C-alpha cells in the first residue's frame, strides 16, 4: 500500500509517494536524500536515528510518516540556520564531541530538545536526557562537556 504524503522536514514541505510501511527513517534517507539521519539497530535500541517531531526527540526507525502529516520534523540538516551553526553543533565540533560522528546527529537533536526545554541543565540532567543515545567512541565525556558549553553560550548571548 502506497500513500501520498506531505511531510514537513526542516521547514520544507515534501510530497512523497511511499509504501505506508516505510518508516520515517527510511523515507528521510531514501526518498528525501537526508542521510544525516543515521541508524544503528532499527529497533529503537540505540537512539542513533533520533529526529525531532514538533521539537520532541523520537526514534525515526519506529515512526510512520503516515502519522506525521501535520508535524514539523527536524533532522540534523535542519539545525543550522542558514550558514550559521547551532551552538550545539559549534560546541560539538570545537570540543571533539564527535569522534566517528555516527551517533552525533541523534545526540545533537536530543540535546537541542533538552536545551529548548531546560536552557541551563545540570550535568545529571544532560546525562538523563541523553540516556537513550548510545555512543561507543567518546565515553560521553566530551559530549556532556559540549552540551554544557552550548548551554552556557546560549544563556550568555555573544
Amino acid at each position, binding site marked *: 500500500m502506497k500513500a501520498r504524503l506531505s511531510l514537513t522536514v526542516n521547514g520544507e514541505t515534501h510530497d512523497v509517494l511511499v509504501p505506508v510501511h516505510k518508516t520515517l527513517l527510511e523515507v528521510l534517507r531514501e526518498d528525501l536524500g537526508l542521510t544525516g539521519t543515521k541508524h544503528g539497530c532499527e529497533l529503537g535500541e540505540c537512539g542513533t536515528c533520533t529526529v525531532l517531531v514538533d521539537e520532541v526527540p523520537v526514534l525515526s526507525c519506529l515512526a510512520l510518516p503516515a502519522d506525521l502529516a501535520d508535524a514539523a520534523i527536524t533532522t540534523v540538516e535542519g539545525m543550522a540556520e542558514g550558514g550559521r551553526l547551532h551552538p550545539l553543533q559549534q560546541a560539538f565540533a570545537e570540543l571533539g564531541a564527535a569522534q566517528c560522528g*555516527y551517533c552525533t546527529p541523534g545526540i545533537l537533536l536530543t540535546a537541542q530538545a533538552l536545551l529548548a526545554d531546560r536552557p541551563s541543565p545540570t550535568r545529571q540532567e544532560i546525562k538523563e536526557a541523553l540516556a537513550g543515545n548510545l555512543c561507543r567512541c567518546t565515553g560521553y565525556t566530551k559530549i556532556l562537556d559540549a552540551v554544557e558549553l552550548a548551554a552556557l553560550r546560549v544563556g550568555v548571548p555573544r
Partner: protein
Amino acid sequence: MSADAGKHEFAVIGQPLPKIDAWAKVVGETKYADDLFLPRMAYGRLLRSPHGHARITRVDTARARALPGVYAVISGADLPRVRFGILPVSQDEEALCTEKVRMVGDAVAAVAAVDEETAEHACRLIDVDYEPLRALMSIEESLAHPEVRIHEYGDGPNVHKNVSLQFGDVEAAFARSDLVREDVFFFEGNTHLPMEQHAAVAAAGPDGKLTLWSSTQTPHYVHRLLAKILDMPAAHIRVVATPVGGGFGGKLDAFAHEIAACRLSQLTGRPVKIACSREEVFYIHRGRHPVLMWIKTGFTRSGEITGCHLRTWLDGGAYGSYGVASTFYTGVINPVTYRMPVYKFEGARVFTNKPPCGPKRGHGTPQPRFALECQIDKAAEQLGLDPAEMRKRILAEPFTKTANHLTVTTIGLGECIDRVVEASGWRTKWRGFFSEEATSRARPGGATAPSEKKRRGMGIACSAYLTGAGTAVYWNHMPHSGVILRADRSGSVAVLCGATDIGQGSDSILAYLPAEILGIDPKDVHVHPADTSLTPVDLGSYSSRVTLMCGMAAIQASQRLREVIAQAVARKLAVEPGALAFRDRKVGVAADWERAVDFPQAVELAEAMHGVLAFAGSYAPPRRAGKYKGGGVGPSPCYSYSACVVELTVDEETGEIELHDVWIGHDIGRALNPLLAEGQVEGSVYMGIGEALMEGQVFRKGVHKNPSLLEYKSPTTLETPEIHTFLVETNDPEGPFGAKEAGQGPLLPVIPAIANAVYHAVGVRCDEVPITPEMILKGLELRRRGKPARVGPERIPLFTFKAPVVVESAFGQPADAIAVRPFQ
C-alpha cells in the same frame, strides 16, 4: 624533527583544535558507506547459515532467481575457489561457504535485487541442504572432540595455534622468590559494537575495473585480498574507505558482504550495496577473544617481580582471522611494564563453532593485563605493600630491552601513577586492603555517606601498549605508511595518504603536522585519505599505528617540501635557507620578520624553481624484532603507558556496582592535539568499563545469545562515571614530535582497576570479567561461610603446549642506540 621538537614553540601541535572533519559530522554531511546512493544501484543481502557446523550438500538458487525484482543470486560456486584470510598463515575463509559452514552466521549465498526487501525475500527462497555436524562451542569441547575437525589445518585437532616461548629460567627465579602466586583468570569475549553497521558499495565498470567503497579500517589489505579472492589484477581494483562510523578493530578483515557486493556488481553491471544488519555485525565479530589464563609470578619481599610464567587459552571461534597475532599478543606485552627479568609464555588458540575472534581495541593484551594486575594486587596484599607504591617501585627502565627482546624507549608510567594517586586522593582514601574490621570503619568517599549496605572501594592498575605493530601482516620491505604532499599555487597543500579515519582523528593529524612544519593553518591543508588508486599505502587503522606512522611520513614529506620552498625563498631574499622561518602563512627571515613572503608566493617561487611541488614521505618502523621464531609480534617503535584509579560502590545486597570516578594518567609521548588525545583516552576507559561490568559475546544452544543493541549491554550515559584524564608527555624519540599512542592502551588498566576496587570495597576477588552482581553475591556468600571470597574459573584445560623456543632473556640490555629506520 622529533629530537629537538621540545625546544620549539608550536603553532599547531599541542593546540586543542577541532578535528578537520568535525564540521561535516555535526551538520550530517559526512557520507558513510550506507549513505551512498548511486544511479541504478541494486541492494544485496546475504543468506547465512542457521547451523553452527554442517556440511553443505546442496545450494539451489532457482526459486530465488525467479522472484521478480531479483537481478542476481550467487553462491560459493560463483566465486573463484579461493580461500583467504587476513594473515598469510591462516587462509581458511570463503566469502560464501562451499563445503562446510562453521558457525551460525556463515554466509552461503547472496542476492542482488531492486530493493532490500526483495533481496531479503529472495534469500528465503534459496534452498540449502545441510548435513549437520557436531558444533563445538567451547575450548573444552573442541579439545575433547578431536574426531570432529572444524579445520584440517593448525597445530593439532581444533588447535589453531600452539606457541611457547621461554626467556630465561623461570623455575630458578621462583625458587629464589619470597612469594610465588599462581592464579587462574577468565576474560569473557566481547565485541566492538560500532554504532555504524558494516556496509559496502561495489561498482564494476564496463571497462572491467572495480571500485569498492566500504566501511573498512584497512583499505589496503582489502584491496590485496579482493584481487586474490576475485582472481583479478589488483591494478584493476580500487578500494575507498568511507568515513568509518566506529571501528575498534571490527572492520579489519575482508568480509563476505564486501566480496559478494563486488561479485554481484560484476554480474549485474550495477552498483551493489550490502548493508549488514545489527545481528550480522555480531556474526562478523572478530572481537575480543575469551581467554582463560594461568599465571605464576614470583615476588621478592619488596615487591620486585622475579619471574613470570603465563599460560593462555584463547577461544578463537570458527576462523583464523588475526588469531595467530592475537595469541602472541596475550603473552608478549606484559613484560613491557615492570621489571620482569625472566619470562615464559605458553599460548594456544582453539577453534570453536562461533563467530571468529580477532583484534578489538587492545588486541589480545587486555586479558593478560587483567590477570597480571589483579595478581599484583593480591601479591601486594600478601606482602603488606601499598599497590600503587609497589607498582611505582618496580617500573621497567626506559631505553632498555625486556626479557622477550622488546625495545622500550621512554616510560612515563611513574608520573602517570603519581598523577592519578594525587588526583584521586588515594593516600587518604585507600588506607589498606579490605579487612572485615575495615568494613566497620568509614570507607573512602568524601561527601556522600554510604548507606550500611553499600561499600566504597578504590583500585589501581597500570598497563602498556604498543604504538604500532613493528611488522605488517604480510612480510615485505616496503613502507608501512606513505604520504604525498602537493603544494598548490593558492597556498593550499594537499595530503594524500592511505590512512583511514575511524573517528580517532587521523585525517586531522595529517593536516596538523604539515601545517606546523610549513607555517600554515590546518585549514589550508586538504586531506585526501584512504583511496587505493590515489593514496600511498598506509596499512590501516589498527595497533595504534596511524598517528605515529603516517605522522612520521607526513613529517618527512613536509620537510622535503619545506626545504625546496626555503631554497627558493632564500634565493629571492638573498639569505641562507637556514635563516628562514615558516609561520603565520609566511616564509621569511626569522631574525627580520619584515622580510617575509606570503606562503602562496613562496610556493610560486618554489614551483618556478623546481617544477611541480609534490613530495613523498615514507615510514617503516625500526627493524628490531627479536631474533627468534615469534619475535615479530610485540615489537613497536615505542610503548604508551597508563595508570588508572577507580572509585566505586558495591551494593552488598544486590551485588550491583556503581562507578563514581575514574582517574587515568596516560603517557602519550606528546599530545599533538590534547583534545583528541583526551577523547581517545575517555573512549578507551568507557570501553574498558563495558568489558569489566557488562559486555559479553555469549552463546546458548549454538547461537549468539543476545545479538542486539538491547540485550548486548553497552554502557549508557548513566553507567559512565566521570573520567579524569591526565596526559603525561615524555617526548619519545620514535614518535612524530614525540607522540605515542592514545587510542587503545588506556582501556587496559581500567578492567583490573575495577576488579581491584571491588575487592577493596567488599573483599571479593573477581578473577573473571565481566563482573556481574551474581558474582559479587556469590563471593559475599563465600565470605560469610568463612571460605575464600574468590569468584572465577576453577580449573584449566588438560593441554600440552609445545616445547618452548628457548631464548636468553634480554632483560635490562640497553636499547639499540637510536635505531636505524628504513627510508630515513
